[in-house]
């Protein structure tokens, strides 16, 4: 069938019905400009239209590029269900979807919080051992009894030993803890990206 520009654009408008109006008009303007430029370049109108992909193929590709969440909202909007009915349905099924959504949200928040807590705890562990160990060590050395070999000499020696052990463990832990934190951090970022990709297509595909 020979199609002219208007037929092509009308067909595309219908096929893209589930897009929001602004988005759809922008797409149509783009294709209209393409056809006009081809005609200006010397093609006949029919040839210009024929050189583009068929409307269905085009529309499918454009819709495919649209993020999942936006499309779901649009689908609901365009499925013939009126907004009022949609609101009523949302209210009626509130006891069903709300707990589900809350659980999903809760799980996500819990996982994020756990990961953060783990990072903080690991840093606290190293800092605690390191700083605590150093403090005990310095405290012992400056208490004076260590040098005078007095009454508390034995317990001061014990404190020095404990301080050294603490600091030593902290130094030993720095590398594995750093590695763990990096691991958790990258997991965290991946999780965030995944969640974002439910709403936005771009990011997930670019990775």
């Amino acid at each position, binding site marked *: 069938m020979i199609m002219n520009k208007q037929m092509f654009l009308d067909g595309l408008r219908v096929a893209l019905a589930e897009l929001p109006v602004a988005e759809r008009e922008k797409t149509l303007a*783009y294709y209209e*400009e393409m056809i006009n430029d081809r005609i200006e370049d010397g093609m006949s109108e029919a040839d210009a239209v024929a050189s*583009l992909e068929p409307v269905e193929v085009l529309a499918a590709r454009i819709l495919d590029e649209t993020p999942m969440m936006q499309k779901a909202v649009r689908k609901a909007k365009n499925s013939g269900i009126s907004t009022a009915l949609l609101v009523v349905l949302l209210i009626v099924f509130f006891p069903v979807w709300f707990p589900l959504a809350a659980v999903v949200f809760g799980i996500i928040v819990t996982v994020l919080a756990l990961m953060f807590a783990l990072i903080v705890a690991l840093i606290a562990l190293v800092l605690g051992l390191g700083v605590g160990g150093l403090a005990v060590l310095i405290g012992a050395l400056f208490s004076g009894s260590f040098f005078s070999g007095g009454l508390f000499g034995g317990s001061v020696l014990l404190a020095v030993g404990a301080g050294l052990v603490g600091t030593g463990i902290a130094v030993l832990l720095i590398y594995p803890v750093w590695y763990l934190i990096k691991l958790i951090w990258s997991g965290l970022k991946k999780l965030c990206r995944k969640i974002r990709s439910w709403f936005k297509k771009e990011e997930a*595909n670019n990775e």
Partner: protein
Amino acid sequence: MDAQLKRGLLDICVLSILQRGDSYGYQIIKDTAPLLELTESTLYPILRRLEQANYVSEYAIEHNSRLRKYYHITAEGVARIGEFLQEWQDIMRVYQYIKEGYDHE
């Protein structure tokens, strides 16, 4: 060519065309023709992507009593090209390494 790789290349290719001067849809397609096969339906999502990432901005100019949309590369877009070139330095090193092993056989 690998689809993912081609996609990335096309984005930068379009940016590179715009770095040489502002352009419009049909002209961009004609300019990329000798390099990579690009159709209007592949260009459209690329332009949208680049626009959303703030790599290009757009403006309309009246032409033959209709509006034609022109695309302009932003500073971020130019920076993205620089990033791409840097990435490819690394890729080329790996390429060289792989090639040496292959040629050795």
